[in-house]
């Protein structure tokens, strides 16, 4: 129950800040390549550096830390790379990362509402068809 409340609160705060700042987690790279604009890229870098500093800090104060991480096998590496590439490529075509699409949907952009509907449907499709098919095809 505590996780549900914590994520709801974090989501509300992040959604509010994301709408006010136009934050997008693929838009930073896209804007920098396209028009050399670093505004969104600074947000991306700030997120990464803050997480990098905060994880050891949490461990230092006695909270639950992360890791150690097991060495991944080749199949997992390939699947992760393919998935990450797909997220980046298609999110750029779709005009924003999943977080940005949720924010735009809440602003009344119906294209983003249909994206979010497809996003939710995609979870069911993945577990009913895509994942079993992959498991059958992979060694």
């Amino acid at each position, binding site marked *: *129950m505590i996780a549900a409340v914590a994520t709801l609160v974090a989501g509300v*705060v992040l*959604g509010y800040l994301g709408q006010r700042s136009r934050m997008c987690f693929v838009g930073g790279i896209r804007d920098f390549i396209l028009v050399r604009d670093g505004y969104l890229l600074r947000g991306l870098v700030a997120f990464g550096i803050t*997480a990098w500093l905060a994880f050891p800090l949490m461990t230092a104060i006695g909270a*639950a830390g992360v890791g150690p991480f097991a060495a991944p096998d080749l199949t997992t590496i390939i699947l992760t790379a393919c998935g990450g590439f797909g997220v980046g490529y298609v999110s750029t075509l779709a005009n924003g990362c*999943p977080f940005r699409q949720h924010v735009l949907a809440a602003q009344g952009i119906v294209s983003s509402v*249909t994206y979010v509907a497809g996003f939710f449907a995609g979870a069911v499709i993945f577990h009913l068809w895509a994942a079993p098919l992959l498991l059958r095809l992979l060694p």
Partner: protein
Amino acid sequence: MATVIDAVTPARTDHRRVRVTATMTGIAGALMAVVAGSLFDVRPPDAYGICMACHARDLVNWTINAAAGSELTVAPASLVVPVLTPIGVLLGALLAARTSREFRWQQPDHPVKTFIYGIVVMNCALLAGGCSIRLLLRTGAGEPLGIMGFGALGAGVALATVWLRWKATR
């Protein structure tokens, strides 16, 4: 090309008058993600504090499981009650849009295309073990797979951007 420019223009022009910057959002988002995972039981798996894809998957699958008695996959953090990040983001953004008078319904250009984009991105994100936010969070946690996933994401964004620019200028 018009689509790309439309997407870029608001970020380039509006950030001069909005008080909340992307840097502030990035710092606040990372702190909340780490604290949620470390202090508020949003784990396992590790570095699970905020993820639009995994948390949406948990919410949808948990709801279907509860309603239909099915056994679709949810993360251990969502076994009893699902994580609610997507609902929170929608509510927070709606609140911000309403208070800044930026909420207005806009009809879609290609609703079927964006619906399919949503399906594809969710499937790719679940394959990679997270959306762009969680891949970056896993990178910050020092997880090798997260670093590889985020590197591949960057390559995907770069290639798609170059392709869109080439398509617009040919």
